[in-house]
């Protein structure tokens, strides 16, 4: 029996029944990381010693009958989530040696339950990108084809889950960074409602859009992780005091009578035929399960990428101004004056894509452009929210492709920035409207690469999208990655 293929819900009962020990489970994953991650490059840092100690602690909790949902479960953590005493680089030279002295709130929550951290996963630098190729260090590959990208920015987390290097992982999603790599790597990824999960200790990219969420082998496993990480945090003023439901409560429930919206703009030009067909086939599957499909429209979708890049870059340019080479982060050896030191530290520490976003953000906010760009982007945001509201007045969830294509080659598209940005149109409106969405695999293209579909829910209604994704996963047979 290969333990790395088993889902969290089953691992839980195996651990609690003492069929396996927490240490045994952790070692199986550490061995697999050692065996394949040289080729996959999904981990920035492997924390083997910490993992083994956590496993021992988890075992004691289990032995004392104090086991919680994630006790002894080995997880990977995206490298923009602060971990006390463990390097948190954001895959940037700027933070190459940065060691936080506190945990992100989600890490405290995982530790309280006795979860085991295997290490920190690679990502696009500061979460800016959709390929993990803007990482200054590990340019992660796709476990289905090592010549292709894993998607991004949480590409390390998605690839590690897909290649069974961890039971599940945490990622972060600002414009699709959990869902798109999950689609490319053939796994399930959930972006919670904005405010559902504390952002305290998540290195900020665009504060009004960022959310931490789970990447796992199934919707049920995502729900189990979300149960642990969700909830109000006094350290994050935007986290919600709303009651946190049991996100697994609708697992295994029928979707009969569920109204699923299919907005035509998401299936139009720009979507590969194989992707479109696979998602529409999934829609048929839902219909055969008793759900009702509802055609609808989101006219503002064509402005979504523009609005997203304006808002996210404006916020990024402000958030990243903290990197001055003085308090933490890369400090240049050159520069006689205070101003030169800051200029050189930033120019040496940031990669090309990060610099582009900072430049774009400053353009959006600069005098003479503010109203035409940033102000207009906020207006489009409100329009997109209204359009979602009118769809959700008639439907329970929305079904769209997660990305217009399957994973592409490691050297394709990377130099065409505008093309890369346009490819985000399937995912960005969800962040703009603060909604929850889950991506799961709905097919494979002619070359065997996974195709992802997204189910978008009403604000605070993660339970229903988890139910819908789970219902499909029970009907669908996944192919394992070749690695």
């Amino acid at each position, binding site marked *: 029996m290969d333990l790395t293929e088993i889902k969290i819900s089953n691992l839980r009962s195996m651990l609690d029944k003492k069929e396996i020990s927490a240490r045994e489970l952790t070692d199986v994953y550490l061995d697999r990381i050692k065996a394949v991650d040289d080729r996959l490059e999904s981990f920035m840092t492997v924390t083997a010693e910490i993992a083994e100690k956590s496993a021992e602690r988890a075992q004691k909790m289990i032995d004392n009958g104090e086991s919680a949902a994630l006790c002894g479960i080995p997880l990977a953590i995206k490298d923009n989530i602060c971990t006390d005493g463990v390097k948190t680089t954001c895959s940037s030279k700027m933070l190459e040696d940065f060691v936080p002295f506190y945990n992100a709130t989600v890490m405290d929550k995982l530790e309280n339950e006795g979860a085991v951290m295997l290490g920190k996963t690679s990502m696009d630098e500061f979460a800016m990108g959709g390929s993990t190729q803007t990482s200054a260090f590990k340019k992660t590959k796709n476990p289905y084809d090592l010549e292709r990208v894993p998607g991004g920015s949480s590409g390390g987390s998605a690839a590690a889950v897909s290649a069974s290097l961890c039971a599940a992982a945490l990622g972060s999603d600002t414009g699709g960074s959990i869902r798109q790599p999950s689609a490319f790597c053939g796994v399930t990824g959930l972006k919670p409602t904005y405010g559902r999960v504390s952002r305290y200790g998540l290195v900020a990219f665009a504060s009004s859009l960022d959310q931490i969420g789970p990447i796992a082998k199934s919707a049920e496993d995502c729900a189990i992780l979300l149960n642990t990480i969700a909830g109000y945090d006094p350290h994050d003023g935007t986290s919600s005091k709303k009651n946190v439901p049991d996100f697994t409560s609708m697992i295994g429930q029928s979707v009969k009578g569920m109204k699923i919206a299919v907005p035509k703009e998401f299936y139009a030009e720009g979507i590969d035929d194989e992707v479109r067909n696979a998602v529409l086939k999934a829609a048929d599957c839902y219909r055969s399960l008793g759900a009702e499909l509802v055609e609808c429209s989101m006219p503002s979708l064509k402005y979504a990428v523009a609005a997203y890049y304006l808002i996210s870059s404006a916020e990024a340019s402000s958030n990243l101004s903290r990197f001055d080479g003085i*308090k933490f982060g890369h400090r240049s050896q050159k520069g006689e004056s205070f101003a030169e030191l800051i200029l050189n530290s930033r120019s040496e520490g940031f990669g090309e894509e990060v610099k582009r976003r900072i430049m774009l953000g400053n353009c959006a906010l600069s005098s003479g452009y503010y109203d035409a760009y940033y102000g207009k982007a906020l207006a489009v945001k409100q329009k997109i929210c209204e359009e979602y509201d009118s769809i959700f007045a008639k439907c329970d969830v929305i079904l769209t492709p997660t990305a217009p294509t399957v994973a592409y080659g490691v050297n394709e598209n990377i130099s065409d920035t*505008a093309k890369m940005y346009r490819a985000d149109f399937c995912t960005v409106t969800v962040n703009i409207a603060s909604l929850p969405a889950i991506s799961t695999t709905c097919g494979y293209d002619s070359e065997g690469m996974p195709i992802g579909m997204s189910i978008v829910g009403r604000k605070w209604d993660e339970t229903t999208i988890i139910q819908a994704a789970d219902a499909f996963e029970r009907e669908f047979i996944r192919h394992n990655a070749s690695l």
Partner: protein
Amino acid sequence: MDREMVRNLAQLSRLSFTDEELEKMADDMTGIIEIIDTIKEVDVTYDPFKEDHNVYLNDLRKDITADSCPTAKILQNAVNSEDAFVVPKVVE
């Protein structure tokens, strides 16, 4: 985007570029501006009263003094620290 504009944005961004990097940045920015310029054609107006920031101003946490971070820990990620952040001379 013209080179002068890119130079101006670089200055606002506290970033420096070689001539070659500046050329490439100008080309990239031109492609990006083409995308974001599409937003100019939409006829919508921002309504500040409809904004939902998720922050409820009458429900903020109490302003109570809590433990602060120890200075030594704050300085552990700074280079050249001697119980303080060391910077080049600012005042002549």
